[in-house]
């Protein structure tokens, strides 16, 4: 089973979490000014990288807080977890090349 380290509760099973999609998708400054196409881009279009992907998770079975995690989509390895106030951490190229990581410790 995938284990994810909640920033507040520590390592817990994946079943305690729910997935929230791509992280760092900012709400448009002025939604009314957007064209239909731009609005659709904001609503429906998400990255689908092969490799590290920053995504939102919520610890619904524990502290019920949202946080962000960088997960390698090839290996399911969680490379980093960080709170919503923190910037996206840099993931070193060696880690992304081999898919080997410290499990988000």
């Amino acid at each position, binding site marked *: 089973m995938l284990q994810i380290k909640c920033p507040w*509760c520590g390592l*817990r099973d994946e079943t*305690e979490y729910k997935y929230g999609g791509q992280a760092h998708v900012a709400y448009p400054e002025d939604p009314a000014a957007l064209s239909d196409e731009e609005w659709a881009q904001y609503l429906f279009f998400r990255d689908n990288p092969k490799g590290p992907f920053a995504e939102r998770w919520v610890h619904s079975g*524990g502290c*019920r*807080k949202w946080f962000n995690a960088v997960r390698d989509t090839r290996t399911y390895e969680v490379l980093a977890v960080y709170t919503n106030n923190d910037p996206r951490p840099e993931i070193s190229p060696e880690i992304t090349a081999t898919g080997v990581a410290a499990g988000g410790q």
Partner: protein
Amino acid sequence: MADLTTLQGLRRSPLQDMAAELRNGSVQGDRAVLLREWPFLTMVNIRVEPGSETAGRIEGVLGASLPQQCGDVTGDGAHSVLWLGPDEWLVISQAAPESLVGSLQSAAEGGRAQIVDVSANRTVVEVTGPGAREVLEKGCPTDLHPRAFADNTAISTSLARVPVLLWKVDANTFRVMPRASLASYVGVWLLDAVAEFGPRASAVEGV
């Protein structure tokens, strides 16, 4: 206005109908496990910015600090404070809910805080005895070994796939706190789970 004193007498706890079943279904022997509901405990949910002035006043009323880490439980007298999240706590107490909520709310007045009486939200099932940990390990994904789960620790987790608060008081005493609507399911699951640990109390006493 409804007569609250009459209503108090008419209250039914979520596991009231299972009291005898839990008592007779408990098992005895080397790995004895005793099941029992502890109904009508006062529970108050607190949300406040930790370390703020309002939090300090709330701590003054409780006579205990608000725990800062997952699993921590503070307070040793009238009230116990459980960590639910970085800005959320649960007070468990035997004090009357109206007076506790009232004094907490007046302490929080003027600050940013939320104090809610959630006494009816959960009930407490006490699982005690030398086999208690093994029984809970059958249905709980969290590591309950003493090296990972110390005495006087409380966490939100799941038991038999339903969300519960699990409070380990000491090595042989656990308090399982399911939502009221899931309490009978948890009770039935526990009755089934303890069966392999020894003879039923009812069989021993010849009830």
